[in-house]
């Protein structure tokens, strides 16, 4: 019995908690991609860099707050800066929309052209970020680092293995759940949310019933800005802030959005966790886990790792390819809000 509990503890500590955290971060990004896809109808290749842009403000403001002595008790100061970062992000997004995307929307350009334009936005955003903050690696988490340390857990339960819970992990999961539930409530229950869904479902019909397209587009960018900034800050708190990494994160985020059915926010939400769990479960070395479950004579010599951690990204992309082959519309039917 003790062995089984020990084995489970190992599994939770090294796979479930990191996967939940990483999945939440991906989920926020994937909902961002999916929202833009559903309402504005294009694949936004500037996703990663937009998240990075919002995070940049949070990082800079955190440094500023630290110098003037404001802090958030045991929570990271970055959480205090999120509202300001969101405002900056939304202003940037609305400016981009006004000067870049709206022209093509009015012209009703094909989605491919939108995607190419978003590549241009990606270049510009990346340049602005690197010119302002530079490409280096930054850690900006402060306050209490751990909620639960492995030693404390061992003392409380008397097990051989411990569970470590970083505060950034707990904050990520809780904040994600709050934000996502508010968003779903907004989309399903409020009038504005319903008008967004109607617009995404059938643009012409929505226009006929008196929905203002400008307002829908604006609300979409505002929600997108909130999601992008929070997703980015949470990722930065948990790992670290580095512009190049954010650009690369675009790829698993796309994978999550498509796996969940692009255009479907709930699918994107779950898609994030599917990708995260697959990545971590397939690259985890099960040696320690099995050593508790198997009798000593059978104890494995090798690491019992299905794939080396180098292939972490490749796994999510392979899942994507399989989903595209077997069920192109994603696990949950996509293309409507």
């Amino acid at each position: 019995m003790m062995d089984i509990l020990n084995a489970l503890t190992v599994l939770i500590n090294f796979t479930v908690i990191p996967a939940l955290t990483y999945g939440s971060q991906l989920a926020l990004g994937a909902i961002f991609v999916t929202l833009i896809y559903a309402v504005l109808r294009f694949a936004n290749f500037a996703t990663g860099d937009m998240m990075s842009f919002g995070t940049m403000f949070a990082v800079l403001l955190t440094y500023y707050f630290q110098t003037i002595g404001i802090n958030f008790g045991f929570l990271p100061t970055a959480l205090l800066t999120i509202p300001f970062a969101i405002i900056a992000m939304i202003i940037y997004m609305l400016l981009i929309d006004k000067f870049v995307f709206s022209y093509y929307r009015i012209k009703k350009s094909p989605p491919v052209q939108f995607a190419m334009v978003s590549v241009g936005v990606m270049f510009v955003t990346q340049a602005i970020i690197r010119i302002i903050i530079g490409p280096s690696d930054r850690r900006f988490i402060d306050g209490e680092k751990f909620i639960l340390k492995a030693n404390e857990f061992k003392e409380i339960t008397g097990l051989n293995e411990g569970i470590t819970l970083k505060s950034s992990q707990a904050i990520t999961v809780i904040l994600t759940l709050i934000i996502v539930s508010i968003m779903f409530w907004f989309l399903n229950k409020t009038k504005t949310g319903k008008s967004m869904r109607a617009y995404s479902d059938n643009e012409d019909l929505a226009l006929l019933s008196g929905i203002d397209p400008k307002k829908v587009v604006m609300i979409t960018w505002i929600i997108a800005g909130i999601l992008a900034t929070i997703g980015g800050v949470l990722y930065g708190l948990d790992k670290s802030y580095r512009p190049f990494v954010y650009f690369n994160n675009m790829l698993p985020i796309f994978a999550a959005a498509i796996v969940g059915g692009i255009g479907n926010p709930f699918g994107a939400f779950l898609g994030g966790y599917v990708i995260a769990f697959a990545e971590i479960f397939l690259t985890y070395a099960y040696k320690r886990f099995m050593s508790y479950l198997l009798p000593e004579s059978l104890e494995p010599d090798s690491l019992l790792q299905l794939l080396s951690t180098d292939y972490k990204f490749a796994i999510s992309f392979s899942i994507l390819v399989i989903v595209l082959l077997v069920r192109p519309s994603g696990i949950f039917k996509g293309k409507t809000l």
Partner: protein
Amino acid sequence: MRNYSNVIAAYSIMLILIILVGIFQSWSIALTIMNYCLISAVMTIGANIQWGYAGLINFGIMGYTALGGLAVVLVSVDPVKKAWQVGGLNILACILIIVAMVITVRYLLNHFKKSKIRNYSIALIVIGGILVLNVTATPGIEAIEAIDPAKTGFLGGLGMPVLFSWIVGGLFAAGLAFVIGKIALGLRADYLAIATLLIAEIVVSIIKHEEWLARGVKNVIGLKRPAPYEIDLQTSDWFINLVEKFHSKKLSLISSATEKQEALNQMVIEASSVYVKLCFTGLFLTVVVILLIVTQKALYSPWGRKMRAIRDNEEAASAMGKNIVKEHLLIFVLGSAVVGLAGAMMVTNDGLFTPGSYRPMRYTFVIWVMVIVGGTGNNFGAILGGFVVWFLWVEAAPIALFLINLFTSHMPETHALRVHLIESASYFRFLVIGIGLLMIMRYRPKGIIPEKIIKQ
């Protein structure tokens, strides 16, 4: 002739710009830029075949480039005999297992009806195959990687001439494109873009982490060259004499013999690097010209017209009895092969293969910007795009530095803003490229040299 006046003007401006770099910076830099422009031009020809002729969006250019580079290593490097002795059998067995897996899966797909049992058995074969592969490969890979890991630790290549590897690079890329095309070409445009982007990422991560294949992130250096080496040139008499003749006027101004010898040595070193680069330029120029003639002929042949018809109206072309799936696959393979060739050319030019340097920004998105800026569907435009964008990509930093110094000259040397801006001068290239792309897409959506359709 009038039709071509804008083409000629654009290319002359480009040439003058490169010559200006030669005068203001150095001829060595100018030739480096020129060589990379030519390589980029080959890549854009490939991308233009897919996007401009057939409207296929392929964000996987990085993957084909990397495969082309891999081909150079696998063909031109001398084989590591010891590695073959200890692990060659395992690797060959693995290849056989993979082939067997593919054949059985294909057999199942073709000879049985779609059912749950079929799906499960395919999944079982794939998973079982991967497990067997793991067991067979691991000892071999470990043995190979243990052999002199600082220098080799990989199987090496075939020891063949490097020019041959350019063709192999094209074939490798074509093979990959065939597989991807079979999987992904049925997808809608933006799905296809994302899928190819991610598949390219998988390809690069395999090349990066399978060290027995091409040393992975440990890089392969000192690859063969189709051009002479600088060291050999510097010691050969004919070359020194040539340099002496070339610079005879300058040399005659110097009176003392020792100084003359020193000046000559300096000139020989400089001239040798320029000479090697000129050799590469000649080679690349030949490739670009051949490709340009072939693609231009293809574009205005019945086949090219068919491609345009498919691009502009798939349903109508399909109604006329054109096999769209087949044609799309063909053009996907052809375009990718050209990109693979460019990848091999690039690695040959650098003389080293660095899998860690393959990033989507540089090898996919910049190439796409080149095609869009230059002119989709027009080969002259695509090549010009390669030149213009690569030139900006390289020269943006020095130009930005110059402008920053100009505008901040009233500030003191240590002013925080000035120091910060000067430090980040190299990132202005992203800004230039991004704004350039947005401007072109907005005000000249068909590119600098738009597509021209000759009506017959």
